[in-house]
C-alpha cells in the first residue's frame, strides 16, 4: 500500500500541508492570545482607575458603607472577578466578596510580591508591572490580577476624619482580579478550528491527489502494463490508444513506436527466414529433380543421335529434348530466384510475349468461361528482356486472374502501351556504397517494398540511423531519432563512420550542406542534408532524361484483394489459394520485374477486380 505512488504522494503532500497549517496556526493563536490579553489588561487597568476615582470622594469623607457598596456593585459586573482594597498591612478593607473583608493577606501572596519582593517595598509601580497572570491550580481558569497603588494626597492627610500621616507615600492598594476564561475559550475554539481545518485539508488533498493520480498515472500505467504483457505474449500489434502530451503519453507513443518497430523487425526476420527456407527448398528441389532430368535428357538426346535416319521419330524426340531442356531452365530459374541472379535479356516484342502467354492459358480460359480482351499498342517497340521470364510473369498473372474469377466466369483485360516517365519517382538506388566501398543498402528495412539506404546521422545531440527512401525523388525516409523539419544532419557511413557530406556542393534550394552516396555504375546520388528539404540530384539518371517504358496491365473482374492483404501479396509464401498455390508466384514475378529494372504495382477493389501494372524500361540503364 505504502509503495503505491498515489499513497506516497498523498502522505508527502498531506504532511507538508499539515506542517504549514500548524505553523500558521501557531503564530495566529499566539497573536490572538496577545491581542485578547492586551485588551483584558487595558480593560482591567481602566477599571482600577475608574474604581479609584469613583471611591475617592467617599474615601475622603470616610463613608465606608458607600465605598463597600460601590465596590460590591462593580464586582457584580460580568468579566470582573474580585475587587478589593487593601491597606498597607495587607488587611482587606473593602471587597466585592463580603466574606473577605477583614482578612489579612501575607506579603508573600503573588499580588503583593510586585512591590514587597524588595525591601524597602517599592513605592511606585509602572503600568506594565501592575498586572499579573494567576492560575491558582493546574486546570483551573486563569486570572489577570491588577494592583493599583493608592497614593497619599494632601487632601488625605488634611481630611478631618482620621488623618493619614503626611509622610506616608502609599496608603494601600486596589486589587482587581479578572478571570480569563473567555479568552481561553476563544483560543481553544481557534485551536479546534485549526485542527478541523488541517484534517479537512488533508482529506480534501488526498481526494484530489488520488483522483488525478488515478487519472494521470494509474490508468495510463495500467494500460502500459497491459500493453507490455500483450507484447510479452507475442501480440505485437497492440496499440496504446491514450496518447497525451505528458510524460506517460510520450512513453505510450514510444511504446507504440517500439512495438511497431518490433513488429516490423519480426516481419523482416520472418521474411528472411522464409526466403532462406525457400532457398533451401529450391536447392533441394533442384538437386532432386535434376537427377531424374539427367536420365531423361541423356536418354532422349542419345536416342535423337541414334535415330538420325528415322525422321518420324526425330520430331517427337526433339520435343522431348526441348521440353526437358525447358524443365532444366525452370529448375535453374528456381535456383536463380533463390540466388537472385540476373535474367538473360534479349530484344523481344512484348506483344509477342503476351500472345505466347495467352496461348499457354487458352485452355484454362475456355474451361472457366473467362473472356480475354487484349488492348495492345501495335507500335510498342522491342524491349530488352528475358522473354521466358516475362512470359512466366504474364502466365502467372493470368492464371491468378482466372483463379480469382467466380464460377460463372468473367473478363480479363491485357493492355500494353508505351509511356514516358521522368527519372524522379521511377529510378531507384539498388546498390549504394560510401567512399570506402561499404554497402549501404539495407534489405532488412524496406520502404514500399524497396530495400532502403542505411546511413548514420547526427543532428544536434541526437545520433541514430536514417533509412533513406531509395526511390529517386520520393521522400519516405524512416528515422530512429526524432528529426524535425529544417534540422541539418551530419551523414556518415554506418560501417566505417566516414563522412558522406559534400563540402563543395550546397543545396540550391535552401543552401544547406549536401551529402552523397556512390551508386554502383550510376554515379553520385546527392541529397540535401536539411531534413524536410526535398532536393535530390542523380545526374547519371537525369542525363538520360525522360525515359520510355512499356506498360503492361492485367486486369480482371474477379474477387479482388482485401486492403489488409494487398501489401503482403508480393511476399514469398503468401497465398490466398490455400492448398492450391505455393505462394511463390507473385514473389517470383516481383523478383523478375525487379531484375528487369521495372516496377510492378497492384490496385484492387474487393468484389470488383484487380489490376496489375508492370512497367519495363525500353532501354536498360547503362
Amino acid at each position, binding site marked *: 500500500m505504502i509503495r503505491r505512488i498515489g499513497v506516497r504522494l498523498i502522505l508527502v503532500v498531506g504532511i507538508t500541508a499539515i506542517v504549514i497549517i500548524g505553523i500558521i496556526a501557531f503564530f495566529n493563536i499566539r497573536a490572538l492570545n496577545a491581542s485578547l490579553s492586551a485588551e483584558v489588561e487595558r480593560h482591567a487597568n481602566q477599571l482600577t482607575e475608574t474604581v479609584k476615582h469613583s471611591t475617592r470622594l467617599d474615601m475622603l469623607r470616610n463613608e465606608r458603607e458607600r465605598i463597600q457598596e460601590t465596590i460590591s456593585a462593580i464586582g457584580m459586573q460580568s468579566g470582573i472577578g474580585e475587587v478589593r482594597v487593601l491597606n498597607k498591612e495587607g488587611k482587606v478593607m473593602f471587597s466585592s466578596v463580603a466574606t473577605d473583608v477583614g482578612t489579612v493577606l501575607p506579603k508573600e501572596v503573588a499580588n503583593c510580591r510586585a512591590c514587597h519582593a524588595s525591601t524597602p517595598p517599592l513605592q511606585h509601580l509602572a503600568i506594565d508591572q501592575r498586572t499579573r497572570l494567576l492560575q491558582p491550580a493546574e486546570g483551573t481558569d486563569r486570572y489577570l490580577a491588577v494592583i493599583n497603588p493608592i497614593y497619599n494626597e494632601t487632601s488625605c492627610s488634611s481630611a478631618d476624619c482620621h488623618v493619614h500621616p503626611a509622610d506616608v507615600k502609599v496608603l494601600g492598594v486596589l486589587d482587581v482580579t479578572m478571570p480569563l476564561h473567555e479568552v481561553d475559550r476563544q483560543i481553544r475554539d481557534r485551536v479546534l478550528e485549526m485542527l478541523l481545518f488541517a484534517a479537512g485539508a488533508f482529506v480534501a488533498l488526498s481526494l484530489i491527489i488520488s483522483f488525478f493520480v488515478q487519472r494521470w498515472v494509474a490508468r495510463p500505467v495500467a494500460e502500459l502494463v497491459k500493453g507490455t504483457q500483450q507484447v510479452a505474449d507475442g501480440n505485437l500489434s497492440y496499440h496504446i490508444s491514450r496518447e497525451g502530451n505528458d510524460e506517460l503519453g510520450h512513453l505510450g507513443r514510444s511504446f507504440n513506436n517500439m512495438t511497431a518497430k518490433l513488429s516490423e523487425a519480426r516481419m523482416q526476420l520472418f521474411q528472411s527466414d522464409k526466403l532462406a527456407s525457400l532457398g533451401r527448398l529450391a536447392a533441394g528441389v533442384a*538437386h532432386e529433380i*535434376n537427377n531424374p532430368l539427367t*536420365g531423361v535428357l*541423356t536418354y532422349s538426346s542419345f536416342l535423337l543421335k541414334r535415330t538420325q535416319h528415322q525422321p518420324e521419330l526425330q520430331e517427337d524426340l526433339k520435343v522431348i529434348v526441348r521440353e526437358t531442356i525447358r524443365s532444366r531452365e525452370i529448375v535453374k530459374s528456381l535456383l536463380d530466384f533463390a540466388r537472385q541472379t*540476373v535474367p538473360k535479356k534479349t530484344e523481344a516484342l512484348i506483344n509477342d510475349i503476351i500472345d505466347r502467354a495467352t496461348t499457354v492459358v487458352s485452355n484454362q480460359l475456355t474451361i472457366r468461361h473467362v473472356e480475354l480482351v487484349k488492348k495492345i499498342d501495335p507500335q510498342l517497340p522491342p524491349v530488352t528482356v528475358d522473354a521466358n521470364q516475362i512470359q512466366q510473369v504474364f502466365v502467372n498473372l493470368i492464371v491468378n486472374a482466372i483463379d480469382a474469377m467466380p464460377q460463372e466466369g468473367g473478363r480479363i483485360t491485357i493492355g500494353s502501351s508505351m509511356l514516358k516517365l521522368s527519372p524522379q519517382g521511377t529510378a531507384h538506388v539498388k546498390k549504394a556504397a560510401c567512399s570506402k566501398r561499404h554497402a549501404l543498402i539495407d534489405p532488412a528495412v524496406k520502404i514500399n517494398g524497396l530495400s532502403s539506404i542505411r546511413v548514420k546521422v547526427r543532428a544536434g545531440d541526437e545520433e541514430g540511423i536514417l533509412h533513406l527512401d531509395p526511390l529517386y525523388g520520393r521522400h519516405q525516409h524512416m528515422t530512429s531519432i526524432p528529426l524535425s523539419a529544417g534540422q541539418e544532419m551530419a551523414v556518415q557511413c554506418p560501417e566505417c563512420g566516414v563522412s558522406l557530406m559534400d563540402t563543395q556542393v550546397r543545396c540550391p534550394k535552401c543552401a544547406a550542406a549536401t551529402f552523397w552516396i556512390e551508386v554502383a*555504375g550510376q554515379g553520385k546520388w546527392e541529397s540535401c542534408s536539411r531534413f524536410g528539404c526535398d532536393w535530390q540530384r542523380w545526374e547519371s539518371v537525369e542525363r538520360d532524361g525522360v525515359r520510355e517504358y512499356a506498360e503492361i496491365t492485367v486486369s480482371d473482374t474477379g474477387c479482388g484483394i482485401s486492403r489488409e492483404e494487398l501489401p503482403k501479396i508480393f511476399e514469398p509464401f503468401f497465398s490466398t489459394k490455400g492448398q492450391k498455390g505455393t505462394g511463390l508466384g507473385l514473389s517470383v514475378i516481383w523478383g523478375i520485374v525487379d531484375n528487369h529494372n521495372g516496377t510492378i504495382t497492384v490496385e484492387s477493389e474487393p468484389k470488383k477486380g484487380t489490376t496489375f501494372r508492370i512497367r519495363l524500361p525500353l532501354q536498360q540503364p547503362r
Partner: protein
Amino acid sequence: MKPHTDILVIDDEQVILDAVTKICTSEGYRVVTSLDAESAVPLLDQQSFGVILCDVMMPGMDGFSFLKIALGKAPETPVIMATGFSTVENAVQSLTVGATDYIPKPFTFDELKSAIQRAVRFRRIREEQSRIVSGTMDDGTLVVPCPPKYRRLGHSSWVCLQNDGTALVGVTHLFVRTIEQPTGVETVNPDGEIIQGTVCAQIQTFDGLLHPVLSPISGRVVDVNSELKTFPAIIEKDPYFAGWLYRAIPTDVEYELARLQPCGSDPLT
C-alpha cells in the same frame, strides 16, 4: 585414337550411370562405373583411366574428397565434375581444387560428348607438353601459358584487371587447344551480366559442338570483342590479348579474385 580410352564414371544414381555408359560407348569409349566414391578409389590403383566423370553430391564420400584422392593417385587423369546442385560455389570449388571441367546436370548428349572430348584432348596435350619439355618432341604445338599478372578459373578462362577498373575476360590457350578449330563464339550482349562459375560464352567448333566457357568473374559486360564475329580464330591466335571476349565492370572484385588461381602456377596455363 579413341578405342583405348577408358572412362571412370561415378554417380549414386544407376540411371545416370546407364545413360552415360550408353553415350560414351556409342562414342567409342570404354566405361567403368561405380555407384559410390569409396569403391571407386581402389579402381584407380587397378588401371589407368583416360577421363574420370564424378558427381559432386553423393552419400558417403563426396565428389570433392574423391577429386583430391584422384589428383593424388593419378595426377595425369583429367576429372570432370558433374552435379545436379549446380551452384556457383560448387563450380568454382571444383575447378580450383583441380578438376579440368565442370558440367551441371542435366546435360545433353552433346554437352557430355564435348566435355569428354575436351578432357581427352586435355590429357593428350599435357602429355605432349611434358615430351616437349623433355625434348622428345619438337615445340610446334606448344601451349602458351597466360601472362603472370592474369588470374584464371581452372584451365578454361582468365581475367585481367585494367587500370580503369574494368576487367578483361578471355579463354586460355589450353582451352582453345582442347576444343580445336573454333568456328564461332556466342557471347552475351553488351550490358548483359556474367556470373562467376556460370557459362558466359559458348564456342562453336568445326564438329558442330558447343563448348561452354565458365566466367572467371561476375560483372556487367560493357564491351564485347567485335573481332570474334569476323574472325573467331583470333581466340586461338592471340588468346591473351587480341582474342579477349569481354570487357566487364566486376561486381565483387576482391572476393572473386581470391577464389581464382594466379596464372603461371601451372606450366600449361
